[in-house]
């Protein structure tokens, strides 16, 4: 039994400070059901993520949300595995549908994060939320992901003889795409010079090489093929899923840091399940959080050979009118990046693209889409193939 996306909702990415994250979720669910034309009595599964990375997370969350909305469910789950969480939620819901237990379900997530911390007072709180870096890395007080990606970017430039200028072009292109996305956090055009002149964060990474930390929310309604046909819904079918987790969660013990094997393995499994080749993909959304990891992801998914992504971006191949449009939404760099919500935003974008609802950033007549999400420094990856 195949499953397909039949409706989505999403908030503008940016800041929703002062709003209640649960209330945002309830509205997202209502709007996604409206979009799908599904009555609340038909919802049988509700999958979500924890509240956020920097805020207190509660227990028995899925059941509490269901109670507030008056939903009786056959399946309820909170999924957590870093940035891949909500994509793993989608996978779990698809499996429930494939198993015949569920006809219609929703995966949703919202985040209203905390942005100001003052060490040393907030040190323990920071360590709690950044437990992923414990224990040995923290001896130095290294508590953000950026330096890890800086190490990767430095080696990537060194191994392939790539300049920062060549890497910066992807940030410029993503910003151009975001300019056509009304939900994007950053929409004003930038130039390569802007990227190179932006504040150094962790060399060689500069500010405009980074995605922002963001608030946001999204909901995705998924239904069985039988339901979709019976109710004559427009759907983007999920035809293949792949997933892989390395034995590491930031710096791998032995493998390189200029390619991410989990992405290649997850993509291969997803393509195989869909009976597709990478050349069949018409549009992709990937989880690139820094310029260099964005480019490396293009290579590991298999769109370009190693070290060749910057050249392909410069040639316009990944632009909306190019041979393989990647991150037409503006990507994490310019669409914005609420960690837990991001995979749902990627899937929403692919749904919009495949159903011809992507407005000014519509790719021409795509049939096969790919969404990729990750956790750690690409140490784990999940890839979904969607088709119309």
């Amino acid at each position, binding site marked *: 039994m195949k499953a397909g996306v039949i409706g989505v909702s999403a908030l503008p990415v940016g800041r929703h400070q002062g709003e209640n994250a649960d209330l945002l979720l309830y509205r997202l669910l209502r709007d996604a059901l409206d979009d799908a034309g599904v009555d609340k009595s038909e919802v049988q599964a509700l999958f979500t993520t924890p509240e956020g990375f920097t805020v207190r997370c509660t227990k028995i969350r899925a059941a509490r949300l269901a109670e507030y909305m008056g939903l009786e469910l056959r399946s309820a789950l909170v999924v957590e595995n870093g940035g891949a969480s909500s994509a793993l939620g989608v996978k779990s819901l698809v499996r429930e549908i494939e198993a015949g237990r569920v006809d219609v379900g929703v995966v949703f997530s919202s985040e209203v994060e905390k942005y100001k911390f003052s060490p040393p007072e907030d*040190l*323990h709180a920071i360590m709690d939320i950044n437990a992923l870096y414990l*224990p040995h*890395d923290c001896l*130095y007080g290294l508590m953000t992901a*950026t*330096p890890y990606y*800086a*190490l990767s970017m430095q080696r990537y430039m060194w191994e392939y003889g790539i300049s920062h200028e060549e890497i910066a072009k992807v940030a410029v292109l993503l910003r151009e795409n975001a300019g056509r996305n009304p939900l994007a956090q950053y929409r004003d055009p930038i130039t390569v010079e802007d990227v190179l002149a932006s504040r150094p964060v962790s060399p060689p990474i500069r500010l405009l090489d980074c995605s922002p930390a963001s608030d946001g929310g999204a909901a995705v309604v998924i239904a069985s093929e039988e339901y979709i046909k019976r109710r004559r819904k427009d759907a983007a079918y999920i035809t293949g899923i792949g997933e892989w987790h390395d034995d590491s969660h930031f710096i791998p013990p032995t493998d390189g840091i200029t390619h991410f094997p989990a992405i290649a393995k997850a993509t291969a499994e997803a393509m195989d399940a869909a009976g597709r080749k990478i050349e069949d993909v018409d549009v992709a959304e990937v989880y690139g959080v820094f310029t260099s990891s964005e480019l490396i992801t293009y290579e590991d998914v298999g769109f370009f050979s190693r070290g060749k992504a910057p050249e392909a971006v410069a040639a316009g191949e990944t632009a909306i009118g190019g041979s393989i449009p990647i991150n037409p939404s503006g990507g994490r760099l310019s669409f914005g990046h609420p960690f837990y919500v991001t995979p749902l935003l990627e899937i929403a974008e692919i749904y919009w693209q495949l159903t011809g609802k992507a407005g000014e950033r519509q790719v021409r007549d795509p049939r096969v889409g790919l969404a990729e999400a990750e956790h750690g420094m690409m140490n784990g990856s999940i890839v979904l193939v969607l088709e119309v």
Partner: protein
Amino acid sequence: MTQPMGWPDWRDVDGRMLEFLERLKEREFATTFCDDCETCFFPPQGFCPECFSEKVSFKEPEGKATLYAFTQIDRSFRFAAPDVIGVVEIEGVRGRVLSRIDAPIEELEIGMDLTLDFIDVGEGYLLHQFRPAMPAGA
């Protein structure tokens, strides 16, 4: 150049991180070695990631240390910012060591040989760090 940041709960599941820190106080950079499959691995832990044995003991790695990659952090909570950090590969050790590098970033090159060193961070603790090895003949 260092500032107190306390020593929070390290979620040390098996006591090996605390032992690692205690040994550093004695200027001993030792990590865990599996007595069954003879894998030497970092970070130190009481459970061999290769063969699941819990028969592990501490050992000072003897292999050559080289610089795999490096960067600078502008938000160092313990050290003065900016501060240089790097990933160090030690021959014979499974797992790389993320470490402070005691040198200006301009003087570093990927692949260069490193020497182990220690730094007093106050509160009774020493931490490991690495610095470029003296060139031959210097």
